[in-house]
């Protein structure tokens, strides 16, 4: 029809999305969209929202189904041919255990946040964009489970991921992060997840895990990762549009958003410590160091982004400078802590090989040999003498990020960093100024933090003994935890590799 042809793409998409909505009259709009104003964000004209992408549902179904057909074809082949035997080394598998334990159900949480916004945003444009992201997040959670389902059949540490997310101590870090965003208002959720997480920090999850998988021969993870990439590109575009839209609506929005950027940068950065540790220690074949990744993806890319956003009056998130000071120690402090709590982890830990330590010395010339190698060497000696370090004392946790307070003073890597404050007669402790500031911004929220250490002492975690708590947390004691050396994973791996070698000879 001639009339149809005259319609531009943009107009047509508007007709297909925001044209569907209407101002309600039988019920007041404020009752239909009750969450719109309490955060103080002022929106004068929802129509100014620029659709970050234009996908009608028929096109969405078509493209996404195509991608999924390819993905599942590869996964089927991977499973059929025991693709797990092609990875670099069985230690690698621990990085994807961490992924399944910490990220997959977080994707589901993100889904719930977006589906909520997909109903509750007053503007139809952002509502449709949120709905599509909600649907994508289901995809991510499910394809991750499906890709790693095969590993679950052959390795420890995957089987209990569902129960672990609500119970295992270190998973309270991502869990509380997402619950913090989900319990916030709609605009803060978008600033937290769409902007701070998807736009500013997502490369620091995507690159280490997906390139890490590629370097280490894990085709299943590579495949779901790269298949998710085009979805992520849409999510990132939305993240930037969200900020620009809010900023352009009213100057009063700027300080509110800046506060959220500060908070969610620091929240996200702290959560990424798990990724830092995975990059530097858990990949047998390294992609790049955490320090290099932070320089490339945050200092350079993030720096350019905030220069661009300066025209709205935004500045770099508070304590970005601390993150730069910490980049030479971030992964080392985390891995040491996990190693020393290796009896209480849902994955294996180990002392890096001497080649790996050489790599670290090269990547961290100003810190590794001075501060971290001697500790690893000492533990290595102890382990060889039959005294593998397994710390049984519960850690003090940060009230906000919930990470054990293992971080050191920004200007002194030998001194633990400790901040405390009082609120309504109670004392609260923090790992950093960043977390302490977040608490002071909304103390009534963070006093509710469910810190695993305290929950154990209150008797809410299955019992008083460490073994009971671990069992309650979903860990099979003696199988999922402890050192890689002597683990089921190691024994099975060596048996399979031996068998494969024999068969190769026969063939």
């Amino acid at each position, binding site marked *: 029809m001639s009339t149809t042809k005259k319609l531009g793409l943009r107009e047509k998409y508007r007709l*297909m999305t925001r044209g569907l909505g209407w101002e309600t009259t039988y019920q007041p709009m404020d*009752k239909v969209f009750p969450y719109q104003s309490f955060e103080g964000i002022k929106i004068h004209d929802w129509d100014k929202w620029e659709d970050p992408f234009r996908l009608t549902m*028929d096109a969405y179904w078509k493209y996404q189904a195509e991608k999924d057909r390819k993905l599942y074809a590869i996964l089927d082949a991977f499973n059929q041919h025991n693709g797990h035997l092609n990875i670099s080394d069985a230690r690698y598998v621990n990085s994807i255990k961490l992924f399944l334990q910490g990220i997959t159900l977080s994707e589901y949480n993100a889904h719930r946040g977006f589906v909520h916004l997909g109903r509750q945003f007053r503007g139809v444009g952002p509502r449709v964009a949120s709905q599509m992201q909600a649907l994508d997040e289901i995809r991510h959670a499910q394809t991750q489970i499906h890709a790693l389902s095969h590993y679950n059949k052959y390795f420890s540490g995957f089987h209990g991921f569902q129960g672990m997310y609500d119970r295992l101590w270190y998973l309270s870090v991502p869990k509380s992060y997402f619950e913090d965003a989900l319990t916030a208002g709609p605009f803060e959720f978008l600033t937290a997840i769409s902007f701070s997480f998807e736009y500013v920090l997502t490369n620091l999850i995507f690159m280490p895990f997906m390139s890490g998988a590629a370097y280490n021969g894990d085709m299943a993870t590579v495949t779901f990762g790269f298949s998710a990439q085009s979805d992520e590109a849409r999510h990132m575009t939305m993240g930037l549009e969200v900020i620009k839209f809010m900023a352009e609506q009213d100057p009063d929005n700027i300080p509110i958003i800046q506060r959220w950027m500060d908070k969610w940068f620091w929240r996200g950065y702290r959560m990424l410590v798990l990724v830092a540790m995975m990059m530097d220690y858990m990949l047998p074949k390294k992609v790049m160091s955490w320090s290099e990744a932070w320089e490339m993806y945050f200092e350079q890319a993030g720096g350019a982004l905030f220069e661009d956003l300066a025209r709205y009056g935004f500045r770099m998130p508070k304590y970005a400078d601390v993150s730069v000071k910490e980049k030479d120690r971030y992964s080392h402090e985390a891995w040491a802590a996990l190693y020393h709590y290796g009896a209480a982890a849902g994955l294996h830990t180990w002392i890096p090989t001497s080649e790996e330590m050489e790599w670290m010395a090269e990547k961290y010339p100003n810190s590794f040999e001075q501060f971290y190698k001697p500790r690893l060497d000492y533990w290595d000696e102890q382990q060889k003498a039959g005294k593998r370090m397994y710390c049984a004392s519960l850690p003090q946790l940060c009230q906000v990020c919930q990470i054990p307070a293992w971080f050191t003073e920004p200007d002194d890597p030998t001194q633990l960093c400790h901040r405390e404050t009082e609120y309504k007669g109670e004392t609260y402790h923090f790992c950093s100024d960043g977390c302490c500031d977040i608490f002071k911004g909304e103390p009534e929220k963070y006093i509710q933090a469910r810190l695993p250490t305290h929950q154990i002492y209150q008797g809410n975690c299955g019992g008083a003994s460490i073994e009971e708590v671990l069992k309650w947390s979903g860990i099979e004691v003696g199988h999922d935890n402890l050192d890689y050396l002597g683990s089921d994973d190691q024994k099975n791996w060596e048996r399979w590799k031996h068998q494969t070698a024999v068969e190769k000879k026969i063939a």
Partner: protein
Amino acid sequence: MIEIRTATIEPLRNTFDHVARVLGGDKPASRYLEGTLKLQSEANFNYQALWDKEHELYDPSRTAIEMADWYAFIDPRQFHYGSYTNARSRQQEAAESNFDFVEKRDLLRFVDDAARQKMARVLVPLRHYEWGANMNNSFIASFAYGSMLNIPATFHAMDRLGIAQYLTRIGLLLGGVETVDAGKDAWLNDPAWQGLRKVTEDLFVEKDWFEVFVAQNVVGDGLIYPLVYRHFVQDIGVQGSTVAMLTEFMSDWSDESSKWVDSVIRIAAAESEKNRQQLAIWYKKWKALTLAAVRPIATDLAGVSAETLQNIENALDARAKKLGLEIGGL
């Protein structure tokens, strides 16, 4: 190529712990179950929501329906994202070739003005009904307890957006942007549509997501879909074949997705007498309201007889009864 004999690489287990518990043992599990079971957190929530004083972040008490196990709601279609998009992608391919066929041959040319207007008057305002259904299912998806319900509810919400977009395309085919605008004007101002718009808006402010499920997916669609995509499309006569082509997606979708809708009601009703009664109360309440709202659309716009509408109502009652609802008067 090295073929590794699978006998030498025995799996240690077949599925995840939480899936094995549901299956009653460690057995190979479908992608549907592994991808759908228990993705939602159930305990140890940290913070009270800033937007809800009364409930935990995920809370089963957001509905009056009570279930011992919120994972009893197996989707008969067993949709996970991959199989869902695959199914819809096939349907959209068929829809696309139908639209192509109609456009290329300019088939609407053979439809006389009166019929064309009638089609526009009935079908185009329905894009807003679908958008309302999208909002209501997004609401269900955001508050339903558990991933077993929330995931298919999300699919259902997106389906409604898709259908609203197909209806928009039909509007454009029938008369361009003007026709689409006229449809919106009718939805907003034409007395015949006001009842349905009021029911839709009233649902936007309901708090119990299961009640919204009954009102929208059982009652609303249970009346609108047979009325429009079966009777109206058939009754419009020879010219209806073109409309039937353009609305094939909707009728196929309704046949398929109502299996899921029915399963949700059947399972909730079978759980307890209390649920059964609650569902029947909602059903009766919303059927009375929706039926009154649909009547002028049926008679004044679609030209569907009172008798046909009665048949549609009877069929819906029979369906509800079969699902376990005690609705009386049958």
